[in-house]
């Protein structure tokens, strides 16, 4: 075999090894992303989230209410990219309402089943860019029966940031 052919073969081998190495790296990165995403929160936009816990067991003795110190909304827009969740361990419906500090209703959800998200938030009025402290997320809880009997409710105070 001539020296030129040997060199060509060597180059070929190098190319194959490099390609193989790239493929292995790509596979590792993809696997890492997939594994990482399994532990990421369900609801991300707005800066807070309730983590989906696959092992969450239903609990009829208490009601789990997700709380946030703050939420970020799109300024000057009614349509938002946030949905709020009724945690899967609950055994009641949620109706979630969002109020400004002065009591202005910004949004109210439909009945949300445990383990489900609300529809994406559509505000009743656009918020100019700014910070809105002491807003309130009200969680009204209802039995999952025909009469939808009211249960204890919860409110969480939070700061809205319109950006």
């Amino acid at each position, binding site marked *: 075999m001539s020296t030129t052919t040997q060199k060509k073969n060597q180059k070929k081998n190098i190319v194959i090894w490099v390609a193989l190495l790239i493929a292995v790296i790509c596979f590792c990165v993809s696997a890492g992303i997939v594994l990482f995403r399994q532990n990421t929160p369900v609801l991300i936009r707005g*800066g*807070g*989230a*309730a*983590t989906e816990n696959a092992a969450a067991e239903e609990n*009829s*003795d*208490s*009601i*789990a*209410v*997700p*709380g*946030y*110190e*703050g*939420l970020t909304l799109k300024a000057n827009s009614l349509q938002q990219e946030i949905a709020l969740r009724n*945690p899967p361990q609950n*055994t*009641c419906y949620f109706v979630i309402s969002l109020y400004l500090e002065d009591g202005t209703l910004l949004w109210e959800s439909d009945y949300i089943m445990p383990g489900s998200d609300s529809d994406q938030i559509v505000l009743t009025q656009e918020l100019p860019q700014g910070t809105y402290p002491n807003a309130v997320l009200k969680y009204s*809880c209802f*039995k999952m029966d025909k009469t939808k*009997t*009211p*249960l*204890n*409710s*919860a*409110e*969480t*105070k*939070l700061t809205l940031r319109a950006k």
Partner: protein
Amino acid sequence: MKKFISIAMALTLCCSCITIASAADATTLTTTVPDATYTLNIPADQEIPFGATETDIGSVTVTEAAGFAEGKDLRVTLTYDGSFSADDVSTSIPYTINKAAMQSSTIGGPSDAPIKYPVSSGDYLVFKGYYNGSVAEGFAIDADGYNVTNKHLEVVILSEDWGKALAGDYSSTITFTAEVVVSES
């Protein structure tokens, strides 16, 4: 002319080096404080048996807390109107809520005999923030400074108030309001 250009270039080079050196000296430190998140667990509905004077209605706890710190706490305020009412009955049944508290200021201390005392509407529990981002899940501190175990919220109805109530299906709800606050002490 060549000399002049050489000197000019040398000076320019020196200036560039000084600029780079001074830029390298300035270190900008930044940090982002995340929004705290948590799950507030409140008692669900509770059927109060007729005639019961003290009924355990469950506990208030906080789990899956993140973004807290020492000095950043979660305050949970209880609000209730203090009476059961029914749609088609004229009478109501007054009630109060009790909570269990520890007598000592430290959990696990020698004089930690639990005591019960009423919680007025508007009273609150404080879940202290921890350095690791979570909050105290198993106990809280109330407005009077007592350590409160979260397992014993009780509805108290006096026997004579049961006696005054006409037959009917009565109900009442309690509202729990959670707020991230800066520590008071």
